[in-house]
């Protein structure tokens, strides 16, 4: 922790941004005025104990100034007792932070797969023509545009995110975005807006369970949530107590919706029983899987549901402190969640005496900064702790040593909001929905070449074809070419898979996965090769670089695909495909975390099942 600070000083604006979050410096040794306290200093454990504020304070500077200068970084280091090299390592880890000067306004244009199907290429072309290539400044130098991975607005694609730094910084999403919208935003004009698309709201509202309040309640109003039955579940949970809640969750056979499908009840029980204290609960809302937008829809429209569910989790496992880690690209969700937490606190639904039952529980919100890997639970812990968002080795598992090394329940948003109905209706009633092993309903993110993209909710066990039918089938009556199921970390299936039953067990048996609930549809007109290249580029960019199989493998995979796409394979096409197979196996076998283990899935399934790159194949 030796502080070898550089001599760069922060500007007044940077200092104000940092002090706004951390408070004024207590001494000259923390960057205050020299002279008053030249013979004493405090710090030590107390100063280092604030390390977890590194990510929030970096956000403050980025939002205020538009980039993080060496002077600002040095000042942050002095305030938090962090070596500059370490702080630089953290700041440079995240895509949304700039460490070189950047204009105040930045338009992040999503060029990921769902938006590719919906015209992001045209947007990019228009910007290249009018402004210049990505990173070029507008004429007055006040704005620039950048390409971005999936922004989680796939059902309204193409999408963009506009960030404006300054004293009154703003962040707004635009979807669907037109070239005119983007140019207006670059010129300082209004950024536009986004909406919510839950088609069942119109066609069959009775089929919605998790989404039943979406579009019905006012997300800015606790009262509205309560009128719609909100906080009945917490009341019930307080009645039946922690053991009762965990019993209901276990009876419900709820499996985690984050991708690993781990039984939620077992996770909660493990933490509840862990003698080490304190216990913590964390909501993983770092939804970054390309093609996924369900958490965004839930939080933007029903934020209190998540807060109530996390409160119940805290109650059940004996945690007094919870975190919600929201991805950085969701400005509206952040705003709604921030307001909802404040209201819940104000009305005693969070705090020292939850619902007047003498239970203590509060929630801290944390915002990601553009790092897909932070959706991995242990990387997320590191990110909250103010470290680089690199996954940890497991074991120890989070239930033993999670956030801050404490026993931690970490659940994603969809898993958590299921808890409300389970507590209200009882685990057995919940288990009656869906299939034997996959109980309840599933949120599915339909996007791409589909007639009615949007967020759908279906009971487990329906077929893929019937879900596609709900969404009106392939758009413009075209033929289905492929579906990316489960996101970039999931895999491709062909038209022959429409009978596939959507449940954990059936997809597993078929060698597929539901992953984060992505159903990304490609019609016959789509060339899959650029899609695969985009996926490969995504994983190369998002690999944290910590372990060799993933760091090297994601690069080699992209290189091989580029050679194949150029029609210049090294050796024969079969040689390249064999190489890709070997890379895939090495990454699956030897990567530390799920990113590396799944980084080859989409490419691998496209080659093996859709025969892309093979003369007789679809490409």
């Amino acid at each position, binding site marked *: *922790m030796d*502080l070898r600070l550089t001599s760069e000083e922060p500007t007044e604006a940077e200092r104000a941004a940092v002090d706004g979050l951390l408070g004024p410096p207590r001494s000259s040794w923390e960057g205050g005025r*020299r002279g008053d*306290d*030249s*013979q*004493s200093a*405090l*710090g030590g454990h107390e100063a280092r104990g604030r390390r977890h504020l590194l990510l929030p304070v970096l956000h403050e500077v980025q939002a205020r100034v538009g980039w993080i200068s060496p002077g600002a970084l040095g000042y942050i280091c002095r305030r938090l*007792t962090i070596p500059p090299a370490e702080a630089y390592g953290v700041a440079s880890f995240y895509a949304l932070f700039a460490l070189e000067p950047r204009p105040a306004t930045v338009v992040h244009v999503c060029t990921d797969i769902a938006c590719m199907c919906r015209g992001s290429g045209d947007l990019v072309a228009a910007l290249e023509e009018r402004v210049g290539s990505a990173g070029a400044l507008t004429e007055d130098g006040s704005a620039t545009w950048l390409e971005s991975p999936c922004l989680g607005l796939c059902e309204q694609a193409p999408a963009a995110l506009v960030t404006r730094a300054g004293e009154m910084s703003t962040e707004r999403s635009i979807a669907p975005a037109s070239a005119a919208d983007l140019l207006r935003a670059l010129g300082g004009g209004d950024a536009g807006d986004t909406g919510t698309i839950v088609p069942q709201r119109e066609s069959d509202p009775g089929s919605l369970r998790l989404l039943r309040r979406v579009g019905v309640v006012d997300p800015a109003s606790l009262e509205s949530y309560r009128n719609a039955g909100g906080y009945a579940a917490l009341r019930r949970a307080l009645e039946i107590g922690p053991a009762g809640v965990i019993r209901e969750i276990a009876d419900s056979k709820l499996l985690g919706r984050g991708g690993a499908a781990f039984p939620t009840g077992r996770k909660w029980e493990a933490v509840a029983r862990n003698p080490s204290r304190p216990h913590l609960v964390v909501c993983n809302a770092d939804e970054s899987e390309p093609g996924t937008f369900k958490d965004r829809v839930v939080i933007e429209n029903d934020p209190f549901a998540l807060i109530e569910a996390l409160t119940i989790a805290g109650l059940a496992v004996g945690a007094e402190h919870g975190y919600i880690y929201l991805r950085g690209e969701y400005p509206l969700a952040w705003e709604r969640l921030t307001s909802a937490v404040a209201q819940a606190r104000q009305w005693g639904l969070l705090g020292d005496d939850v619902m007047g039952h003498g239970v203590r529980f509060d929630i801290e919100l944390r915002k990601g900064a553009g790092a897909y890997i932070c959706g991995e639970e242990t990387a997320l812990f590191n990110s909250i702790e103010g470290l680089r968002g690199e996954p940890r080795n497991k074991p120890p598992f989070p239930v033993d040593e999670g956030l801050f090394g404490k026993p931690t329940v970490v659940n994603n948003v969809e898993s958590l909001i299921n808890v409300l109905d389970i507590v209200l209706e009882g685990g057995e009633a919940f288990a009656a929905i869906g299939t034997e092993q996959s109980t309840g309903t599933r949120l599915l993110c339909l996007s791409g070449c589909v007639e009615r993209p949007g967020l759908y909710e279906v009971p487990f066990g329906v077929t893929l074809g019937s879900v596609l039918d709900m969404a009106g089938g392939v758009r413009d009556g075209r033929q289905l070419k492929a579906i990316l199921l489960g996101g970039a970390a999931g895999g491709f299936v062909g038209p022959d898979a429409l009978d596939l039953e959507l449940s954990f067990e059936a997809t597993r048996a078929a060698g597929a996965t539901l992953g984060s609930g992505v159903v990304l549809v490609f019609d016959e007109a789509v060339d899959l090769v650029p899609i695969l290249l985009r996926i490969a580029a995504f994983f190369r960019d998002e690999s944290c670089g910590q372990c060799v199989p993933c760091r090297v493998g994601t690069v080699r995979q992209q290189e091989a695909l580029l050679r194949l796409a150029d029609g210049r394979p090294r050796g024969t096409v079969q040689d390249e495909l064999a190489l890709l197979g070997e890379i895939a196996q090495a990454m699956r076998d030897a990567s530390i975390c799920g990113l590396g283990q799944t980084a080859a899935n989409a490419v691998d399934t496209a080659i093996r099942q859709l025969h892309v790159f093979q003369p007789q194949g679809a490409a």
Partner: protein
Amino acid sequence: MFGAGGGTSSYQEVRETDLILLWGSNARETHPIFFHHVLKAVNNGARLYVVDPRRTSSAQWADGWLGLDVGTDIALSNAMAREIIHQGLHNREFIERATTGFDEYAASVEEWTLERGEEETGVPANLIRDAAHAYARADRAMICWTLGITEHHNAVDNVFSLINLGLLTGHVGRYGSGLNPLRGQNNVQGGGDMGAIPNKLPGFQDIEADHDARARFEQAWGATIPPRYGWHLTQMFQAMERGELRALYVVGENPAQSEADAKHTIHLLESLDHLVVQDIFLTRTAEMADVVLPASASWCEAEGTVTNSERRVQRVRKALDPPGQARDDIEIVCEIARRMGYDMRYESAEDVWNELRSLSPMHAGMTYEKLERLGGIQWPCVDEEDTGSPFLHARLWDEPVSGPRAPFNVVVHDPPVDELDDDFPIRLTTGRRLDSYNTGVQSGGYTSPLRRGETLDLSPEDCERLGLADGEEVLISSRRGSVTAPVRIDASLRPGLAFMTLHFPDQVETNVLTIEATDPKSGTAEFKAAAIRVEKLEVLERRDQPATAAVPAR
């Protein structure tokens, strides 16, 4: 302490203690290996308080940094003691059972209110109080110190003042609590253990007082040992000055560059009749010698043992033959003894060791075989069954105490000899940096990306006041002489405080500036406190003064 010159605790205890009071030590840079143990403790939750005039890299780790004025250590410890006593946080039971002299001590610190402490030391009263409370109330606590305590004209009193705090709170003689001077080399402790000090025979047996011990040695060696203390280093130089000491045999030291007031030291060495230097390097001192005896590198060219700061005796094994005419130190010493008419012969290093075991009770149980088997042993280890002593003075907790009680020593604050005034307004303190060691004899041979040569480190405020730019060469003068060195602006220093090292004597003879004010009991000079003046060179040039001339001042 309490008769045996060694730290009381093990490294393992450092890692498992609850509070560390690091006093007059920038261990992060000067004892980096020891500081790893401190960091383990910190990571285990231990509190760290650092007492140092400079905000060092060690201080940056601390929960509290007490940036006292140079040479006010006794004022600070007395103020802490008074606070502890007045708050009833002293360990009455321990004091009554295991110590002597408490009442006199308590009376002597009575004048040291927190306010008085702040006035004298510059450390805010509330921080003195916090540190005192934290130390006294900790379940386990240790004080560790180095040269910031001992390189003063009242070094021994400084040490006593820290021991007093340990006795006052009972933080000694128990696992995780102790009083630990950190040793600067791998075998400084071993040198003392082996009697390379003027008042003790090997095993800390007093030459004057312990007649039995002296008799045992006389019998073993077949020679008479003068029953009186010899001279320590400073007394030797005083004897040279008086003309009483005419010949000097220097083993592994470089006094020409390491002693305070270097010009004077060199003059004294030059005026000797005969100077012998035994070393592995041709040091500045060796260059002046009549005879140079090339020795072996003790870590790889010789068999033997070393003893570290936790009193752990460890085996050293020979891997290489010494080059050229260089010879093993034992061989050289024996050869000289024989030429002087005493037939000194040892078969091997183990032979020497076994003789020591027969004469020094605290080493008696340490056979080579056992040292090897246990990976080193901490003294005392009195017989074959004994596996050593992780910490010392557990006897103080016996009921009743076995052996003599531990005495409080009344100590009086006595500011540095070299006073600040209008002519010499800046306090210069000296020390080491991570990348170099002492006069550079051992560390100058390899490169380090951190090493930037000698500089005068000054606060930004002083540099601004004097109109100095970073890197500017300046004239630095004390009452004894002047040197020039480049300035380095160092925000970890406050106005009026300057820092230099002794690492680059060929570039800057820092010890031209330091004062030869020595502690009468330990013989250590006050390297830590000189009064200096800093001047721009261009101003002097206008006055037609030679820029690098030494200004005679006494």
